[in-house]
């Protein structure tokens, strides 16, 4: 390679103010291998790029060095220009004589000499550059959506409506997530079931969507465009094709007193159950831990009454393997459990409940058919206290963040309570009201003004029971911090929104990172909120951080369009600056000795083991091989490989060695 072009830019006078560009062009023009060198006022401008392209063609250049601004700024521009002139873009390098030289040094010879050094470094480097082609990776145009809440449902429908296949996996017997547990939703108070159920049915009936409920993802391998996923379909002890969902078994089952997870302990269900009336699929599941047959070996009532003989007691779990090109995580969040609040008596006093339990009380299909009744004695509470920020914004409890949705659903709870108990008095202890969404503030004002909810600005210090009443001790900071004591009949804690149990293990299974609170980590909080650092895996909804329904739906549609973009062409193109393990002819095959240090160091699991077999199938050597679809080009393996068997395009040992030599030996 000996026909290099050097193009020194003035950048108006950002560079030429302190660097003698003509001199730099002249001096570097005399370097061995430089065929053509010039300087120009605006290299990145159209005429500048035309000058570059003409020079490439005219002087048949096979290497270009543009001395101008930071490569982080215009490397793509000049590489594209080179490509248009027929020169492989990866034979074009930039040396940063603006940010790293002209802008930070005074106008003197030392600055110009430094610019010459920086250009010489890149001239020497370019000689070692190789022409590279972008990497093509095939894409399986099927998406996997993990989680069947509103976020998962929205993402799945959006992707499916783009004409792509979707596989949805939901851990519980029915999709719907937390939204199906809600009574009415802020700020418009429309009934949660009415707006959710049609979407759930749409999922079940959509030709592009395959739904696996009562199932969990067991393993995820492969990479963007080529994920191989194992799904464990837990046995429902039921043949879903025969079952018509008539529900006879659920009424006849002798087990009646099993706490229903869907009702968060306020309602009960039989051993063979459908979590809630509008469940999708509307077919029962046998809870093997509590079913008499599985405990004592006798009963089988459901089998006897079943008109279509669909009960299968000996049905095994089934592990199926599917392929997907992209994964959308939509596993949602959970509400903080009880053993966090001994001071509020949560879990000690039956009438201290959490927000989701209040939703079940207020829900028409709930245990009390929508009437607000105390769990202890079923009385209608005349005085009710809502405690906001129960666990959120509380470093002592290890949860420093604000859970975002509690102010709104607490205001909604107070409003629903007043609509159902007209002579009741609701109190809300709060620190700050965060009602930033559309029509949110008006909603909160309404519950204060029209429904007469007493908002007390202060925290509750302790709640204890005394002769049948719950004594709520707090302070009213707006009244100078005077202590306040309310004898309430019932207390609702707006507990913190936390990551789902098992979120950490799932993140490790899927190879995405998560934060200290076990919420999944987005690639960039502002610019890539629905992507993760793992290519091809996206986030939708509250699994990334506590969110309300509008945000979850928006994020889900965002994730869906990312997937659609991924599937928009048959192949994925990626920058070829990836690692590669050298290969040689038999019998050596490679300098690699199979110590696999590189494999243990690679953050992207991009290094695989390749077994070199003889004709008789016997393994001769096991060598490292880089999967160029996964490798992100960090180069940590290259620095660690003792035999220098692995190298990386763009920053190869040759290139880096030559840069140092050129820089220090002028």
């Amino acid at each position, binding site marked *: 390679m000996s026909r290099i072009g050097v193009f020194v830019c003035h950048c108006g006078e950002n560079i030429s103010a302190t660097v003698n560009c003509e001199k730099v062009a002249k001096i570097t023009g005399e370097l061995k291998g430089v065929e053509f060198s010039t300087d120009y006022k605006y290299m990145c401008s159209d005429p500048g790029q035309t000058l570059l392209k003409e020079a490439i063609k005219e002087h048949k250049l096979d290497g270009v060095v543009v001395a101008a601004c*930071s490569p982080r700024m215009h490397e793509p521009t000049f590489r594209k220009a080179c490509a248009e002139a027929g020169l492989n873009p990866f034979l074009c390098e930039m040396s940063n004589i603006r940010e790293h030289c002209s802008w930070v040094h005074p106008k003197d010879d030392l600055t110009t000499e430094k610019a010459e050094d920086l250009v010489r470094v890149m001239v020497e480097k370019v000689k070692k550059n190789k022409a590279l082609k972008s990497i093509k990776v095939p894409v399986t145009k099927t998406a996997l959506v993990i989680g069947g809440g509103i976020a998962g449902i929205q993402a799945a429908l959006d992707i499916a409506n783009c004409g792509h296949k979707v596989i949805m996996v939901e851990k519980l017997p029915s999709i719907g997530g937390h939204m199906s547990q809600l009574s009415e939703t802020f700020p418009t108070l429309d009934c949660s079931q009415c707006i959710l159920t049609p979407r759930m049915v749409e999922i079940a009936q959509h030709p592009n969507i395959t739904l696996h409920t009562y199932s969990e993802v067991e393993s995820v391998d492969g990479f963007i465009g080529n994920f191989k996923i194992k799904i464990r379909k837990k046995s429902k002890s039921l043949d879903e094709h025969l079952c018509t969902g008539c529900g006879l078994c659920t009424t006849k089952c002798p087990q009646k007193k099993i706490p229903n997870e869907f009702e968060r302990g306020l309602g009960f269900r039989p051993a063979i159950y459908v979590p809630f009336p509008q469940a999708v699929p509307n077919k029962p599941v046998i809870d093997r831990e509590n079913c008499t047959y599985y405990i004592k070996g006798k009963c089988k009532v459901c089998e006897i009454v079943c008109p279509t003989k669909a009960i299968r007691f000996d049905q095994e779990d089934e592990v199926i393997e599917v392929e997907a090109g992209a994964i959308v995580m939509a596993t949602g969040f959970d509400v903080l459990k009880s053993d966090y609040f001994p001071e509020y008596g949560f879990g000690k006093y039956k009438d201290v409940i959490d927000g989701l339990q209040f939703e079940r009380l207020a829900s028409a299909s709930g245990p009390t058919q929508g009437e607000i009744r105390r769990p202890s004695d079923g009385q209608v509470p005349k005085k009710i206290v809502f405690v906001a920020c129960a666990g959120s914004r509380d470093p002592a409890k290890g949860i420093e963040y604000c859970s975002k949705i509690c102010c709104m659903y607490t205001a909604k709870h107070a409003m629903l309570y007043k609509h159902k108990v007209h002579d009741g008095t609701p109190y809300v202890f709060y620190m700050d009201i965060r009602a930033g969404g559309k029509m949110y503030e008006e909603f909160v004002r309404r519950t204060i003004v029209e429904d007469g909810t007493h908002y007390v600005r202060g925290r509750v210090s302790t709640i204890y029971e005394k002769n049948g009443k719950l004594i709520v001790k707090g302070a009213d900071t707006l009244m100078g911090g005077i202590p306040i004591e309310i004898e309430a009949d019932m207390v609702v804690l707006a507990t913190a929104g936390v990551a789902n149990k098992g979120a950490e293990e799932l993140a490790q299974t899927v190879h995405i990172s998560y934060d200290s609170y076990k919420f999944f980590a987005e690639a960039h909080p502002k610019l890539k909120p629905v992507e993760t650092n793992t290519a091809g895996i996206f986030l939708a909804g509250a699994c990334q951080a506590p969110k309300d329904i509008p945000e979850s739906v928006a994020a889900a549609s965002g994730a869906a369009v990312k997937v659609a973009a991924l599937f928009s062409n048959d192949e994925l193109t990626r920058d070829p600056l990836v690692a590669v393990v050298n290969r040689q002819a038999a019998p050596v095959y490679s300098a690699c000795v199979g110590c696999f240090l590189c494999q243990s*160091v690679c953050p992207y699991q991009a290094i695989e083991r390749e077994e070199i077999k003889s004709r008789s199938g016997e393994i001769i050597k096991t060598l490292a091989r880089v999967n160029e679809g996964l490798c992100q080009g960090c180069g940590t393996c290259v620095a660690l490989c003792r035999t220098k068997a692995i190298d990386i395009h763009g920053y190869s040992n040759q290139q880096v060695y*030559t840069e140092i030599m050129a820089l220090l030996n002028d």
Partner: protein
Amino acid sequence: MQDFEPKIVAFVCNWCTYAGADLTGTSRIKYSANVKIIRFPCTGRIDFMILMKAFENGADGIIVSGCHPNDCHYSTGNFHARRRWIVFRNLLNFTGIDTDRIQFSWVSAAEGFKWADVVNNCTKKIKELGPYENYNKIAVSTLFNEEGTSNE
């Protein structure tokens, strides 16, 4: 040694310190011209032999800088680099190579000021230490050897 202008090479990672140096530029913060930057994708890519080559070819001082822990674009590159430097510094110190001439630092893409400080302080320190005699002696005696500069 006031008129001694040290040769200092800086090995930096592309995502944090290189961008930080860019920010130093856009903020027009002046710093000494003795330091010249070589870009790497990540500090994890910086092989210990690169530092040896720098000293052998006349560098009086070296700066190695990358992303703060947990900021690494590749999530673990800087952690691996840190372990490598802990061991390598031990070895250099034991063999009598002056580790004060190597400055390790974390500089993020937002720390334009910090990059200027790192460069200026390092230049000042190397000026006090003077040229790296030990290595130059060895380097000179081998000049006639096959080790030319940019051989074709």
